[in-house]
């Protein structure tokens, strides 16, 4: 199922005018606050009626202002995971989880409570009330509640934004499981590029109410127009080979081995690794006697000079792209040019745990 969204809505200050497609998997709406992400997702949920637009998927029409069709929120069959959880304070966790299921049509009750409880690890919380839960626990219950309502589509509005770093690390894997184990498309709002790198199948970058870029995460996160030169990053696919006694994990990429601080995935698993462009050093010759453990070999496919002193060099590393942010001066001194072979040096400790996620990067249809 591919969701087609075309929405126009006028606000004081800016206009939202967006046309996007959300293919199966996780589509991340990415952008700074005030770019219209939440407005868009609320229009999909039916909580906001845009001035004009059409939202539909495979003949299932949620909104069509031309045909005067605007499905009420409760008829849309959408599981919405809110930033603040929005659990019902007067109901127990179990009652919260089963709330949407009670209203779902019989044939949509395929998700069973035990499976969801097991998947989210909330078995001990069932008889508690939301007031007695931590932020991370609340958010897991909110995910389960949305899932059990038998949705055709899941919306998540910055579900990690209200959590501290430790809680974020606790919840992100559940979204990865959601993406990999549940066949429902997910529309996920975020302004964090590490969330994008870990979760996204497709990224739609928004700025001031317009789509500025759209595509697989590796492409959008390397796009300076979206993330700015400082935020540029790449997403590499890697397979876990082994965990070593010194606390490092060995991974295999198309361009050679990659050593990272221990990752929480079993050997054999494919993971995605976000590497910030400013953490990458380039060398024409293969360097020796370095402290950095990772030297990946690739071919230069693009050099983008910015207005400032910086330059972004994009290497083809197997099927992936690796972006390095270096100075213009270095690029000129080294005589870098497209087509050359180049070595990229990455410190193991430059990759933080939140940059490592599970799942293959699927090439989304563009």
């Amino acid at each position, binding site marked *: 199922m591919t969701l087609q969204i075309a929405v126009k809505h006028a606000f004081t200050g800016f206009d939202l005018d967006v046309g996007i497609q959300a293919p199966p998997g996780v589509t991340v709406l990415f952008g700074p606050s005030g770019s219209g992400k939440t407005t868009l997702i609320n229009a999909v949920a039916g909580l906001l009626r845009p001035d004009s637009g059409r939202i539909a998927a495979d003949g299932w029409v949620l909104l069509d202002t031309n045909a005067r069709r605007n499905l*009420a*929120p*409760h008829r849309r069959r959408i*599981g919405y995971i809110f930033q603040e959880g929005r659990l019902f*304070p007067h*109901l127990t966790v179990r009652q919260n989880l089963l709330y949407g299921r009670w*209203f779902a049509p019989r044939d949509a009750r395929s998700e069973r409570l035990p499976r969801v409880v097991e998947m989210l690890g909330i078995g001990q919380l069932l008889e508690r009330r*939301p*007031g007695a839960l931590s932020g991370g626990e609340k958010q897991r219950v909110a995910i389960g*509640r949305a899932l059990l309502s038998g949705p055709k589509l899941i919306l998540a509005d910055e579900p990690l934004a209200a959590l501290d770093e430790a809680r974020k690390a606790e919840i992100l894997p559940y979204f990865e499981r959601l993406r990999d184990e549940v066949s429902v498309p997910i529309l996920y709002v975020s302004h964090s590029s590490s969330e994008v790198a870990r979760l996204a199948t497709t990224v739609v970058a928004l700025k001031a109410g317009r789509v500025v870029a759209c595509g697989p995460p590796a492409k959008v996160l390397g796009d300076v127009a979206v993330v700015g030169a400082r935020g540029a990053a790449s997403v590499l696919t890697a397979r876990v080979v082994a965990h070593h006694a010194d606390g490092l994990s060995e991974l295999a990429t198309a361009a050679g081995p990659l050593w990272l601080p221990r990752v929480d995935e079993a050997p054999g698993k494919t993971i995605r690794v976000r590497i910030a462009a400013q953490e990458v050093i380039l060398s024409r010759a293969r360097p020796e006697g370095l402290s950095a453990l990772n030297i990946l070999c690739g071919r230069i496919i693009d050099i983008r000079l910015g207005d400032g002193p910086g330059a972004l060099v994009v290497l083809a590393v197997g099927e992936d792209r690796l972006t390095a942010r270096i100075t213009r001066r270095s690029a000129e001194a080294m005589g870098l040019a497209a087509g050359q072979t180049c070595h990229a040096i990455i410190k193991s400790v430059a990759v933080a745990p939140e940059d490592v996620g599970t799942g293959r990067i699927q090439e989304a249809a563009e």
Partner: protein
Amino acid sequence: MWETVASWLGPDEWQAVRLSIQVSLWATLTSLPLGIFIAYALARWEFPGKQVLNGIVHLPLILPPVVTGYLLLLTFGRRGTVGQFLDQWFGIVLSFRWTGAALAAAIMAFPLMVRAIRLAIEAVDPKLEAAASTLGASKPWVFVTVTLPLILPGVIAGAILAFAKAIGEFGATITFVSNIPGQTQTIPSAIYAFLQVPGGEEAASRLVIVAVVIAMAALLLSEFVARRVANVVAGS
């Protein structure tokens, strides 16, 4: 013990106490659904004439009770427009009956009830109701499963406040339905009547004690119930 209390009040006094409780219970319970509806409309909806409705609801609070009673007599009395209609079509007569006393008490207590419930509704986060609608609950279901449980402490507080006000209602009641023992003579009218005759002070003071006890009991009960409900609602 019960015997002593029972014989402590004379039959006329008992009649007044029983009638007061009957009138106040009816006044409170029958006006409660309308009170919740009006409070919800005032808290959540935007419609033309909202301020006018708000003014009408609050009018009995600021008008002299005698004026309210007289207006009731004009509309719901036997010759009044509404009264005539009710009499002819349904055989319902309100004037000079206990049902009329209940109507007067309900109208006098209505602003207090609506204010308490409206405050409770305004304290409910509409985001919770939006969340319920995305989970498949239609508007009536959202109200029953989310809004109503969350405002329950306010509803109970409003109802008990209205009950206490109804017990003490005097001016509108005596103007609209007079002071007929066994029919419309509630505790305040009975106290008034006893004070008009020589030697009635003793009976009057007994009823004063009863009135104080009922008011205190209602207040304590409302505190207790509202706290219990609030704990459940707040989720601890």
